[in-house]
């Protein structure tokens, strides 16, 4: 019998190298995969080969999965590091193409590696979280959500003790995914899943609030998108008006500004970008010349933004471009597509007004709480360059962006307006000081911008200067 397949490779398409290596290992080791197992200690090469063969075996022969796992437990000498690394590669490079039965086995296997705390299992979980597709309520995607949310709930104690950071990643992902699922209306299949996801998120926030603080300010941004869900409205209210409910022994939560002032690590923005999408975005921003990017943009759009609802993903993409992709100086100074140009294109691809607003919020979010000591100029650079470079041909974009920024300062959190004034004005000052823009005059003296808008900007920067001196 020939080895079974992991993916359905269409005709005239090359087989993936990883799949080939697993299949060949399985075929060559077939004899040793059935009991009685050899008691001899395998050589290092043979060990790797056996790990590959067993992985392929579990994935393609569900009826022998338990035997294969026992075999693995018997031979393992490296804390499952080899095996888990293979699993991780598989998720990163092949997951979307895997056959449904293989995916089922893969999730079972992930559960098994968590049970034995195989070295690197946390990376596999994170990688699986990345495979949840944004703005996709298809059955395949919902299946993965429900498998993972169940896994996190069932392995709660173990994860909390061994790798709490994975729970922070899960919280970020499910908060984001819940906005998609809540938009889907009350379909029955969605309802059960939604309850589970809400349960997991609320459990993390209420019981392990320090994991939310780890996320930083984007936690609040995501929470605000879910304010129509009673559980999250209550949480947000508590965070703002009743912070002491989150106090535990040895930790005092005083005010939401504690969260505002924590920059969210780029690892979180990566969570909502699939490895495939990440490869394509990074390729666009490192290898394609400005002016030559049109076809690549069309292909990207065809693959990832092909349905009306997919525009919700643009918020995540913009967040990734600002926080997760920081090109080196050689690229910034070259003729490669700059980040602001890509964001400009994405912004014009949005149809719904509230998506446009969310994209702009994603673009400016780090401006509002900017603090040189913890924040990086690379997160705020794309927005200012998009404003400045749009002046000659697309001044309405500059106008809309600047107006939105000033509006945010006034209304994002009225109680803490001084924080935003300080943040935005120090962002502008640093951008000028570091030479990203020559001076604020490009905006303040721009004849094409509305005088009232320029006046507000001038006032804001002046206010910020008084506040900081």
């Amino acid at each position: 019998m020939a080895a079974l397949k992991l993916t359905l490779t269409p005709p005239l398409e090359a087989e993936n190298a990883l799949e080939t290596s697993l299949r060949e290992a399985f075929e060559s080791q077939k004899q040793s995969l059935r009991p009685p197992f050899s008691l001899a200690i395998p050589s290092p090469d043979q060990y790797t080969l056996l790990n590959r063969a067993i992985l392929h075996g579990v994935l393609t022969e569900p009826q022998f999965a338990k035997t294969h796992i026992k075999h693995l437990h018997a031979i393992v000498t490296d804390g499952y590091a080899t095996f888990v690394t293979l699993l991780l590669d598989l998720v990163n490079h092949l997951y979307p193409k895997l056959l449904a039965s293989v995916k089922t086995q893969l999730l079972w296997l992930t559960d098994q590696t968590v049970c034995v705390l195989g070295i690197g299992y946390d990376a596999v979980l994170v990688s699986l979280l990345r495979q949840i597709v944004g703005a996709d309520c298809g059955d395949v995607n919902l299946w993965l959500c429900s498998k993972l949310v169940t896994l996190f709930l069932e392995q709660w104690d173990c994860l909390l003790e061994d790798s709490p950071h994975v729970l922070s990643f899960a919280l970020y992902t499910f908060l984001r995914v819940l906005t998609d699922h809540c938009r889907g209306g009350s379909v029955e299949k969605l309802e059960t899943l939604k309850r589970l996801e809400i349960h997991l998120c609320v459990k993390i926030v209420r019981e392990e609030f320090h994991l939310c603080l780890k996320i930083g300010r984007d936690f609040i941004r995501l929470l605000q998108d879910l304010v129509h869900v009673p559980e999250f409205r209550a949480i947000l209210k508590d965070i703002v008006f009743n912070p002491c409910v989150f106090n535990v022994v040895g930790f005092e939560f005083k005010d939401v500004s504690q969260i505002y002032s924590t920059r969210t690590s780029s690892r979180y923005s990566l969570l909502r970008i699939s490895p495939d999408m990440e490869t394509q975005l990074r390729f666009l921003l490192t290898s394609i010349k400005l002016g030559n990017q049109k076809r690549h943009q069309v292909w990207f759009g065809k693959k990832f933004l092909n349905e009306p609802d997919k525009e919700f993903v643009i918020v995540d993409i913009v967040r990734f471009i600002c926080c997760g992709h920081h090109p080196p100086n050689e690229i910034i100074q070259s003729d490669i597509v700059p980040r602001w140009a890509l964001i400009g294109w994405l912004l014009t691809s949005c149809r719904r007004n509230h998506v446009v607003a969310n994209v702009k919020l994603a673009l400016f979010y780090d401006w509002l709480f900017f603090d040189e000591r913890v924040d990086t100029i690379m997160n705020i650079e794309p927005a200012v360059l998009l404003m400045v470079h749009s002046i000659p041909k697309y001044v309405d974009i500059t106008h809309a962006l600047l107006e939105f920024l000033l509006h945010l300062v006034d209304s994002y959190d009225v109680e803490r307006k001084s924080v935003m004034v300080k943040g935005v004005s120090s962002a502008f000052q640093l951008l000028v000081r570091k030479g990203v823009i020559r001076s604020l005059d490009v905006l303040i003296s721009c004849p094409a911008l509305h005088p009232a808008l320029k006046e507000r900007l001038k006032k804001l920067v002046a206010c910020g200067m008084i506040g900081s001196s």
Partner: protein
Amino acid sequence: MQIKLPVHLRVGLCSRPPQRVCVQEVLEREVRLSYWNKVKQWRSWRNKSDMVLLKDIVPAAHNNIESKFIVLEKGSTALEGKNRICLTLVADETAAVHLQLWGDECNAFDSGDIIHLRKGIFSYQHGNLILRAGKRGKLEKSGEFVMSYVEIPNMSEIHWIPHATNSKYYIQDYVISPHSRIFPPIP
């Protein structure tokens, strides 16, 4: 039996006395060396890539082109006799060219796909210069998106003439159009 190193090998060596080497060792070493050379040769032969850049392809009656490129545009599928054909614009970092898909190939590839061509042929068909896999060649999708490209020059839009002394070979005569006239560049 032992031998001494020949005198000329001792010259210029360090002040240590010349090392004495057994014949057996020398022989073994030679066997190892010749084997190693063979391995090296075999490796270089295996790794030797016949991959050509599109700017270097020349019309010929041979099925010997191996190349990698990305599909930029796909025309509509038409029937030629009983078989479907479809003209596409493909390109790599150096040039573009018209590629003709045949039969099932017409459905297998889409714009943005990266294709690996083996044993392809670049020749005239009904007066048009096109690249294709032909009966002996093979097209295979090996990826997507991650390839940069140029649309100028287009090798199908060049007028070629037979070489003055050897009419089997073609040389470039003049450029008919810098870019494809069938698939004009996006403005």
